[in-house]
């Protein structure tokens, strides 16, 4: 993947780091694989809309996140997809404590961390780190790579005592496949893909258990995007990380995720395993979204149904009553106007055996599978 230095030496060193981190994770963490490490319930974030310059009056609110619940399990990747403005980044900021929620709770290993402050908050934040979208603007151009990656150690000196920092930073560079000798270079001396690796190294510095990655590959060219996606998968295996992977590209999300949540106007409308969402979607919005994604294969494109949605996404300051999707939904009925559909396993599927692929939460009164949304299986 990179020709910086000899693969063998690197593999050995990576092995050492991996074992150290694993041992720490195991000692500290009684949470077995599969248990929820993060539990998010009814999370709400409203941004006030104000009018007037001197005397600000609140005239409404942007309902950026409007009741979102999900679990993140140990060692898994939860993908979050949805169109621009649906609230993905806001969820990420709430989970990483960059924003305070208006309502709702966030539990980390069973402990309510929603309104922590001071030392308790600092301790939790160390374990939940964020990687940002834009490798061009999220790195300070005047800091060396060493300073950027080592910056989290200023806040958490216990992780790397002063004398040990340089070595730690070089280890991290190595882990993400960059030459440790680049430690004194500046961000502009790196390509987009390399900058994203720097962002990931920084995210790993405090050896977190959870990484929230907000569109980590969206700004990268396809050939480089694959390098970063592979790196993230490798690091997850090595360090037992749990990822929240946010993206608007449904193909990338499918590739990396174990489970996927689909968002629309501040809500999760459907959530399930990769197979449940991509092969057995029951929510009309998920189906429309899937059908709109082109696949790079003209033969697979033939005979595929494209659901072209009418109109635009309504403003989050003034979402429709009942089902948020009803203004664009071809199945909408009176019930959709007056009654909000809950994110539950739909009634008509609850009496089937628990392992049916349709047996997953979908916030639609008339949830049902639909054929030919996806390209036909290869045969």
């Amino acid at each position, binding site marked *: *993947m*990179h*020709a910086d230095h000899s693969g063998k030496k690197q593999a050995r060193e990576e092995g050492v780091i991996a074992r150290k981190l694993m041992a720490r994770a195991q000692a500290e963490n009684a949470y077995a694989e599969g248990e929820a490490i993060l539990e998010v319930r009814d999370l709400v974030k409203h941004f006030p809309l104000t009018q007037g310059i001197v005397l600000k009056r609140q005239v409404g609110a942007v309902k950026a996140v409007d009741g979102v619940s999900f679990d993140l399990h140990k060692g898994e990747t939860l993908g979050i997809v949805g*169109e*621009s403005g649906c609230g993905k980044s806001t969820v990420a900021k709430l989970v990483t404590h960059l924003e305070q929620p208006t309502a709702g709770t966030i539990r980390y290993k069973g402990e309510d961390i929603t309104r922590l402050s001071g030392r308790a908050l600092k301790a939790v934040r160390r374990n939940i780190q964020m990687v940002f979208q834009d490798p061009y603007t999220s790195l300070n151009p005047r800091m060396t790579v060493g300073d950027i990656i080592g910056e989290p150690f200023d806040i958490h000196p216990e992780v790397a005592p002063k004398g040990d920092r340089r070595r730690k930073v070089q280890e991290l560079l190595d882990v993400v496949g960059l030459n440790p000798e680049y430690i004194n270079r500046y961000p502009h001396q790196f*390509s987009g*893909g390399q900058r994203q690796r720097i962002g990931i190294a920084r995210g790993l510095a405090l050896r977190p258990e959870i990484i929230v990655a907000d569109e980590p590959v969206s700004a990268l*060219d*396809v*050939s*480089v*995007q*694959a*390098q970063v*996606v*592979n790196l993230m*998968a490798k690091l997850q295996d090595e360090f037992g990380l749990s990822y929240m992977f946010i993206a*608007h590209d*449904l*193909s*990338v999300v*499918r*590739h*990396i995720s174990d489970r996927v949540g689909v968002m629309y106007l501040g809500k999760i409308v459907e959530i399930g395993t*990769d197979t449940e969402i*991509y092969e057995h979607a029951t929510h009309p919005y998920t189906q*429309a*979204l*899937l*059908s*709109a*994604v*082109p*696949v*790079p*294969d*003209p*033969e*697979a*494109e033939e005979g595929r149904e*494209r659901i*072209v*949605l009418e*109109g*635009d*996404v309504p403003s989050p300051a003034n979402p429709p009553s009942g089902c948020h999707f009803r203004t664009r939904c071809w199945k909408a009925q009176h019930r959709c106007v007056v009654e909000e559909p809950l994110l539950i396993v739909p009634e008509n599927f609850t009496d089937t055996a628990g392992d049916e692929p349709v047996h997953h939460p979908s916030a639609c009164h008339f949830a049902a599978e639909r054929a030919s949304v*996806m*390209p036909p*299986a*290869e045969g």
Partner: protein
Amino acid sequence: MSLLEVRDLHVEFHTRDGVAKAVNGVSYEVDAGETLAVLGESGSGKSVTAQAVMGILDIPPGRIAGGEIIFQGQDLLKLPEEERRKIRGRKMAMIFQDALSSLNPVLSVGYQLGEMFRVHQGMSRKEARAKAVELMERVRIPAARERVNDYPHQFSGGMRQRIMIAMALALEPDLIIADEPTTALDVTVQAQVMELLADLQREFNMGLILITHDLGVVADVADKIAVMYAGRIVETAPVKDLYRAPAHPYTRGLLDSIPRLDQKGHQLSAIKGMPPSLLEIPPGCAFNPRCPMARPVCRTDEPPLYEVDDDRASACHFWKEMFDAR
């Protein structure tokens, strides 16, 4: 005769750090009613080639260092600027990625659409406004009559892009160049806009050059593809052939490195390294430092575009091996 034929085009930029060879011998053709997709990563020269065709290149620092651009039988590079201006808008039009910055924020959408007819066809304000409404309806803007006086920021991204399409279509040109027309849009909106563009192209039998880095978008709408790398075309082929059997290692690498909606894999096969600096394009084949098939000859001899079949070509010394290895 093709509608447009670009022959061996060379464009360079004189920058502080040296001469950036942005386009190094690009040739392609488009017929009426045909869609050519130009595919390539950031910086590969897709937009610069299109700007040269449109005659909107930044000169200086840009300079056309060689080649011909034959449009409807005449070499555009030999025409005076005044003639070219007449061709722009009337005979060929361009749609850009970022609709918001291509529209004037202080003029109403209707005024900007109508301007095309006032300037080029001398229509009165009233006639031009009626035409603007008609165009907005044609690109399916709901309540066009009521919205004709609205300003660009009052429309959503998808609607603005449709207004850009309306503007490009206003004078019914023979050739449309769409430079990443849907890159800034969400998938569902992207699907709306692409469908609209394809419908209108069919209706008017226009030639369409679709510039993109998205292999998925291309598969659905293009007739043929030209893949660019470091200012060169490395492969051209009818769309189905290219996906079924790429004849260049770079194309193969691109196809293998994209995750697909209908596939769940574990390891994507990434192309190692990154594209070269245009100030220092490697000698021989520009792709050789990243190519898994590279041999000594690749570092010394620049591969020409070898004819692979009647309608396809590859700039790889070893294209035959790629076919045989299949």
